[in-house]
């Protein structure tokens, strides 16, 4: 392969081009509302050094993980149940449609109004937003389970846990990964709104503060930190999980 077309080189080139365009535009416009990459990098380093950014980022990450974990566990359990039992599915399908279509902002406001401006209300709001998506994805996966393999397991007297672990779970894995990816993308956006509306720390709270000060450099610095973190989760956790589970494929 030609060295210039290698994926890593291409990625480097494309990011350099992005930064160059940004830099050129910032110089050309010469305005406070679009700082150059250098200014943003300096703010980013300062914020990391004074501990502000790690503190707020970890708060947000903590909320993200807790609500993500709850939503995935509940979603998988409910999704499997709805996928396996038709009657249950017919009954709860309407609920699912209602919850899928409630705007995120409405759930967040209602949670704060009903339960107060507390941590658990914030997490509940995120979970409620994410849960219907997980349920729908896992339900599809459960419906697509191969009855041939389930019959095999039944015939050879697999126990319930054995069937779940060796027959059902590997078939659901791609659906769980899809729910995880779309889930992370959705949750981190909602978490910021939740924090902006009713918390006194976290990325959302900070961004709200910078917005009131019109401090664009800080907003961009925090954004870069956050995007980097989410990418790291994808590269260091999700990708390896994927390839480990796929090794049986031809």
């Amino acid at each position, binding site marked *: 392969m030609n060295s210039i077309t290698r994926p890593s080189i291409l990625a480097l080139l494309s990011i350099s081009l992005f930064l160059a365009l940004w830099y050129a535009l910032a110089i050309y416009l010469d305005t406070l509302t679009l700082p150059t990459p250098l200014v943003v990098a300096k703010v980013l380093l300062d914020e990391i050094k004074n501990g502000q950014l790690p503190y707020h980022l970890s708060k947000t990450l903590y909320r993200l993980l807790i609500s993500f974990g709850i939503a995935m566990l509940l979603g998988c359990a409910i999704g499997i149940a709805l996928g396996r039992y038709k009657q249950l599915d017919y009954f709860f399908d309407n609920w699912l449609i209602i919850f899928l279509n409630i705007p995120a902002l409405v759930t967040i406001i209602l949670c704060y109004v009903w339960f107060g401006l507390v941590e658990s209300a914030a997490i509940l709001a995120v979970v409620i937003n994410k849960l219907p998506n997980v349920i729908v994805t896992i339900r599809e996966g459960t419906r697509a389970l191969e009855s*041939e*393999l389930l*019959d*095999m397991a*039944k*015939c*050879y007297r*697999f126990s319930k846990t*054995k069937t779940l672990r*060796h*027959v059902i779970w*590997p078939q659901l894995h791609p659906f769980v990964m899809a729910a995880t990816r779309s889930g992370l993308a959705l949750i981190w956006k909602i978490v910021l709104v939740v924090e902006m509306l009713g918390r006194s720390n976290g990325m959302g709270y900070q961004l709200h503060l910078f917005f009131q000060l019109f401090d664009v450099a800080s907003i961009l610095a925090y954004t870069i930190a956050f995007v980097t973190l989410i990418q790291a989760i994808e590269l260091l956790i999700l990708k390896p999980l994927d390839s480990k*589970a796929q*090794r*049986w*494929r*031809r």
Partner: protein
Amino acid sequence: MNQLAINIHDKFYLNSTDNTRKQVIKNLELTLKNNEFVCLVGPSGCGKTTLLNILAKLDTQFTGTIELQPKHIEPRVGYIFQNPRLLPWRTVRENIQLATGAKTDVLDFFLDSMGLADEKDSYPQHLSLGMSRRVSIIRAFATDPDLLLMDEPFVSLDPPTARLARQLLMDLWSKRPHKVLFVTHDLREAITLADRLIFLSTSPMSVISEVAATIPRKERHLEMKIEKFRQQLFIDYPQIAELL
């Protein structure tokens, strides 16, 4: 000594679009003696697989009884499906061990005798169809079953591979005899393998006639003997010729 008495009065499927019943099995009576190898021969689509699914307790929607006599215990069932039905995300060894709990030395013995010693850590998608079939045969044998159900396990294998697989099957069976119900629509295959042939009608399925395969086991590899038995069968039981 025990025997399995099968008695299915009625088995039907409901057609969900127009709510009609389609009867697949009607008054089927069949008794399997201890360690007997029985071949079920019938036209395709006559309901043989349905019968095996009932015996394996995968299908419980029928009227009739299935009884192990004289003692009323649950027979341990091994089922070799038409497709191998291996778990693609588990290796050959894991597939067999999950289903049977067989110890490693038993497992190695089976894999060796089936010519799969080098493939024990392979995933099923890396195996040929013939190999996957052999793994599913081992899986069924390693459960040490009271009743072994086989649903056209050698169909779509090339003739030499099929012959080899049949030979291995007979080897394993003579080492650990048990009741076998072998479904096929290949009369030659049935004559080669069975103690007794049972001919089944088109649906609704019932028994047309039963014939003991009288060729001594030692002479079953002789194509001529098999062919002669087959010709005689058509003369003695003309109604069979219409089925096949």
